[in-house]
């Protein structure tokens, strides 16, 4: 034992690791990237939103006609340009606020608060689908199949909703269960394919989106889903017994789906943070090799995770048909929520409550976007641009970090810890 000394200075080594941290060579790059996305701090999310709003403001100013006109004589009266910019940008964001949170121009609280209920209404499916995508993220899976899962769920819940005759309450519950099951099966198929054959979930989920779209479109033209009194590819309206009741009375659109979504958020929190199953989910997501060596059945975890993920996305599809559009649905019922959910999950850093609030923020963008367009004539595309910028900034944490001079994760090791190790 005298020739070789495989030794290492603890302190130096510890700190060296901090500067040279890199993923192991044989780890697929995508999963390291995914971990980076999930691991980002809350600050990154907040700053990404701020940054996106700033850039959005620039775009609003540039596209505004008054600003363009004032800029034409900028050098003779520059103040005009700045005033025009201020009017355009502040007007736009005030309209966004009034359309999504509280409208001061309306008389009385009951009317003024209506935009907030609209926001929550828009947020309902976004949160549910966001939770599904986030759950998959935590297991290391990219669920891009939200669209397909929502469509299948909507078809299942909708079919139960308009074709069965059941008493109040029970009908709703059965329809919700049917929707969640539909989404879960559509997601679970992906998990099974990945576990059994190693097929990549991104490709499978994307392809299943098309399968679901054309399958549902087909059934919307057959008596299975089509409204018999119409030639359009649209379903009959949902029976009253299966519709989510309004939470705040008939004057508001907010429906009981929002309660289900709160329950889903609590459920996902419990599942991930407190349950044995969730522990295995997280272990597989963070290091599938170590999970396998520790006796966790990684393949089974993939199947379960996709079942849960699909089920949650299915709840979003269910909320669409039983809550938002109850007059009969077409093949566009998913309204792009399956894809927005990816953004919501990223912004919420795949934490259940993070997703919940990210969903509300995006709901606010949706609700406020319309009023921005109506009040200020700002194209709704600007809102979409802001949303896209948020994704961009979240996907590029180093960019946000360098702009706001945030510390790099991993380099935040306290000098105290190294000193302690050095003296020990």
């Amino acid at each position: 034992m005298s020739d070789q000394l495989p030794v290492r200075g603890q302190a130096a080594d510890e700190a060296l690791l901090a500067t040279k941290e890199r993923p192991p060579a044989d780890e697929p790059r995508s999963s390291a990237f995914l971990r980076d996305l999930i691991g980002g701090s809350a600050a990154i999310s907040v700053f990404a939103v701020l940054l996106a709003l700033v850039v959005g403001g620039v775009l609003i100013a540039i596209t505004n006609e008054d600003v363009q006109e004032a800029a034409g004589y900028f050098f003779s009266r520059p103040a005009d340009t700045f005033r025009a910019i201020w009017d355009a940008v502040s007007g736009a964001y005030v309209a966004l606020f009034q359309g999504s949170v509280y409208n001061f121009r309306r008389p009385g609280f009951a009317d003024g608060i209506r935009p907030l209920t609209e926001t929550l209404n828009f947020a309902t499916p976004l949160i549910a689908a966001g939770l599904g995508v986030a759950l998959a993220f935590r297991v290391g899976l990219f669920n891009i199949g939200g669209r397909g899962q929502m469509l299948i769920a909507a078809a299942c819940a909708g079919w139960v909703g308009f074709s069965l005759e059941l008493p109040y309450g029970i009908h709703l519950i059965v329809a919700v269960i049917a929707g969640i099951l539909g989404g879960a099966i559509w997601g679970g198929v992906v998990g099974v394919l990945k576990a059994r054959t190693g097929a990549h979930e991104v490709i499978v989920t994307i392809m299943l989106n098309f399968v679901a779209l054309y399958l549902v479109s087909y059934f919307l033209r057959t008596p299975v889903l089509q409204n018999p009194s119409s030639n359009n590819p649209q379903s009959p309206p949902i029976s009253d017994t299966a519709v989510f009741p309004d939470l705040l009375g008939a004057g508001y659109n907010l429906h009981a789906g929002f309660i289900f979504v709160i329950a889903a958020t609590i459920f996902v929190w419990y599942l991930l943070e407190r349950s044995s199953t969730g522990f295995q989910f997280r272990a597989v997501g963070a290091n599938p090799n170590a999970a396998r060596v520790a006796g966790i059945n990684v393949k089974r975890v993939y199947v379960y995770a996709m079942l849960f993920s699909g089920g949650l996305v299915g709840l979003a599809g269910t909320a669409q048909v039983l809550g938002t559009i109850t007059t009969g649905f077409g093949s566009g019922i998913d309204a792009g929520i399956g894809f927005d959910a990816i953004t919501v999950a990223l912004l919420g850093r795949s934490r259940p409550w993070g997703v919940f609030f990210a969903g509300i923020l995006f709901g606010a963008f949706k609700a406020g976007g319309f009023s921005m367009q109506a009040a200020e004539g700002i194209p709704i595309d600007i809102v979409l641009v802001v949303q896209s910028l948020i994704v961009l900034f979240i996907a590029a944490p180093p960019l946000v970090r360098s702009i706001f001079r945030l510390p790099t994760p991993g380099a935040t090791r306290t000098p105290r810890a190294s000193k302690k190790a050095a003296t020990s």
Partner: protein
Amino acid sequence: MKLELREITKRFGALVANDHINLVVQPGEIHALLGENGAGKSTLMNVLYGLYQADEGQILLDDVAQKFSGPGDAMASGIGMVHQHFMLIPVFTVAENVMLGHEETSFGGRLDLAAARAMVREISARFGFDVDPDALVEDLPVGVQQRVEIIKALSRDAKVLVFDEPTAVLTPQETDELIVIMRQLKEAGTSIVFITHKLREVREVADRITVIRLGKVVGEAEPTATNAELASLMVGRAVELTVDKAPAAPGPAALTVDGLSVVDPRGQIVVNNVSFEVRAGEILAIAGVQGNGQTELTEALLGLQERVTGRIELDGKPLTGLSVRRVLDAGVGFVPEDRTEDGLVATFTISENLMLDRSIGEPFVKAGTLQLATLAEFAEQKVTEFDVRAQGITTPVGRLSGGNQQKVVLARELSRDLRLFVAAQPTRGLDVGSIEFVHTRIVQTRDAGTPVIVVSTELDEVVALADRIAVMYRGEIVGIVPGNTPRDILGLMMAGEHHPEAQVSA
């Protein structure tokens, strides 16, 4: 060429990786840079090679100050590096690898492979390397691949050659050959910087020795210095290098492995018809150079390998074909050789890692719900018992040093009722204090009557721990010999030679 590093300082944030380091390498000198892992040797060499920029200090070649903004500059100035992990492209031929980065082209941009071949032949002949320029690198043994790296550096007229831990991947015999090559290069006037933490090689080949600890030069030594002197310079205190253990009191055979073969996903036979027994209360060490089937053998025991034939029995019950879960439930404790990749979830806390392989059922799970209070109590107890130095049980293990990470793995595995304990490379990359700790725990486990398998590529560890030694070479067990077998015989066996004593004592 004379190389001089003057007052080199390199900081990473608050950490000073190199603190005013001075180093002079005379022409035709082999200068050993000795230090623990993480002492700052590699940082210093990366500064020299232009990969890092020094915050302070100068690099001088023949007394002329140099400015390297990248490896290209360093190479152009005559500095060559033989990396620990070879920078070769496996599917290219030797000649293609040698020309890579400074390709000569003939008319129309065609690669001038003939020139590269001639270069390889010329350098091979000069130093007596037996290297075929048209062989694919992936087909060559590790020792020969290293020579390709040397040829690559020499083909660029390197006057100063840096060897970064060159012997880590070599058999003892290949190491001896490398030492001969280094002497030849020295005769030819090349200056050599030899980075290592292996004392034997240093004393054998070095003209001068510089010892680095925690980023500082802590002393210079002559090759005549004793191991103990060098070791205490390196770690800053006297080191206990032996393992205190009583003679084994082996009981009946507990683990029987019979005719075990493993086929890897590429269809190669990586473990070939291996048979051995481990008795209760003894340590069987599996020695061998990295990559001779030890990894696959331990994985097969755990149920991690897909294509396994043969018989594995623990206490008379078959383990073959069981899932990892069932193998663990049968009482097998396992320390994987790559703890960050296979042993721990870096983002998980210490307590979460302590329950990683007990995520189902009591005591940490009741009715599908984690018992966080029970877990916290258990974690506190284990952190104290295994002396894991961390701020608390909620610290992510990714933030711990290697030694403390390994203690977490050990704490987890040794706190179950074990019928068999398998430790693969249990002390790789650990500091001396942690090595002592790990070795002591392994011996304690043996003394408690558990059969223990230790896989190690460090001959010293094998000799220190083993009651019996099985040597693996190319997927086969060359022989099983007593724990007190001389090193040179073990070295020969690691190179594939069957030893007459082996069969007798097997």
